[in-house]
């Protein structure tokens, strides 16, 4: 990795009600990289990116973005960092009280970077980038299918042209074809913006499509980092078991009896 990474995590630790969810996560994400964080349910993937986004305060560790420790920043400085970040939530998290076009241009309108009259045209332009017609802009999020909601969520995430974009389970709940379509859109928009992308998923096909680098988190720790293309043949028995979806292996599902 040349120079300082875009995102650097060191010793990130978080406990909830005495249960350790993150146990000293160390991770570097280079500028322009497509990092995919893999891991089973409850392994700490979502908590990791929520810590980076400032939605959860970690108990210990550091989070650096462009070399600056965001945990030591004032709220105003933190908001300035968040201005450069986009996020696609697992369930899209669209504001159901607003029509699609206002969802897409929400950040631009909130920061008064655009007026409402121009926002409709801007929304139509961004919706076209994710393969949706301008007429979708007038619909309510409740009127959209799951795949369309993901596309609108993606449009909202890229509307302000961020230089870091997070994707939380971008293909969960979608059929395989729609999943591949969303992955294709993600790759396109990330390349076009020249952004750094951090995705969390347990969909291996999706991970290979959208990731250049992958990291596996298990029991709150990063246990492997390497090229996403090598998933399934990494030589790490835990990663290979996870990537192949094998029942037998070093990872044992904790079942409550």
């Amino acid at each position, binding site marked *: 990795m040349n120079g300082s990474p875009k995102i650097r995590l060191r010793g990130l630790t978080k406990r909830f009600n005495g249960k350790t969810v993150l146990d000293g996560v160390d991770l570097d994400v280079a500028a322009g990289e497509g990092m995919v964080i893999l891991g089973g349910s409850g392994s700490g993937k979502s908590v990791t990116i*929520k810590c980076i*986004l*400032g*939605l959860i305060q970690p108990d210990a560790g550091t989070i650096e973005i462009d070399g600056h420790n965001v945990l030591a920043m004032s709220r105003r400085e933190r*908001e300035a960092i*968040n*201005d450069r*970040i*986009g*996020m696609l*939530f*697992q*369930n899209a*998290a*669209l*504001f*159901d*009280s607003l029509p699609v076009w206002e969802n897409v241009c*929400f*950040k631009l309108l*909130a*920061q*008064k970077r655009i007026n409402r009259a121009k926002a409709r045209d801007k929304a139509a332009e961004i919706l076209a980038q994710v393969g949706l017609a301008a007429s979708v802009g007038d619909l309510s999020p409740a009127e959209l299918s799951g795949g369309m909601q993901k596309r609108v969520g993606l449009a*909202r995430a890229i509307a302000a042209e961020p230089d870091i974009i*997070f994707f939380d389970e971008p293909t969960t709940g979608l059929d395989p074809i729609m999943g591949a379509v969303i992955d294709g859109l993600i790759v396109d928009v990330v390349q076009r913006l020249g952004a750094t992308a951090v995705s969390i998923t347990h969909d291996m096909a999706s991970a290979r499509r959208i990731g250049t680098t992958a990291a596996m988190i298990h029991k709150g720790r990063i246990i492997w980092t390497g090229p996403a293309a090598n998933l399934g043949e990494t030589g790490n028995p835990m990663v290979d078991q996870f990537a192949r979806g094998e029942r037998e292996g070093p990872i044992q599902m904790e079942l409550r009896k």
Partner: protein
Amino acid sequence: MQHLLNFVALVGRLVLAGCRQVGAITLFALEGLSHLVRPPFYPRLLGRAFLEIAYFSLPVVALTAVFTGMVLALQSYSGFSRFGAESAIANVVVLSITRELGPVLAGLMVAGRIGAAFAAEIGTMRVTDQIDALTTLSTNPMKYLVAPRLAAGIVAMPLLVVVADILGVMGGWLIGTTKLGFTSASYLTSTLNFMQTGDVVSGLVKAAVFGFVIALMGCWSGYTSRGGAQGVGAATTGAVVAASILILALDYVLTAMFFGV
């Protein structure tokens, strides 16, 4: 002895939990209020919350006020007629409505309608990650969701209570003139002569406080809800119950402040 200690420990835990809760709600309220004077402002959201409280609550508050005034006139008559004091009915109606029943009953009705609506809407936003999404879109959820609702509650409730006061008195007038033998002129003259500015103002101050409490408890319950649909349901119930109890308790406190002897 051990049972006694366990009991004391339990009481201590409950008191501490109560103090934590009161402290957390107070900080939440102060943060929400602080955003009312710090830009950016969201006038569209303020207008929407105002419309929701003032305009859409109008029918239920109006009906409550009219029937309360009617019942009050009937009940006063049945009591006062024993002492030959029927002429005081208009005075009792206007005093009761403006000082107490207008703000309290309007408050309870709005608590059921608006407290529940705020808690359900914000609670659903919480459990579907929409509040987190606001943060990632560089928008402070307290400023966007809570501050406009608090402001709308403080402004809209006194206006509703003005309507409730007028309709409550009209309810009494309706019964007084149609069933109790008052002439319209004598009933209204008696009402206007007896009514004092302080009675109305105290009711409107109460209304503003109740409006703040209703919006606060709705926002707080929704904002802190957890655990999906069940959590949102619990938040909604909690908002209505807490706001209703606080309205009744604060009514006593404010009455003691205004009219205490």
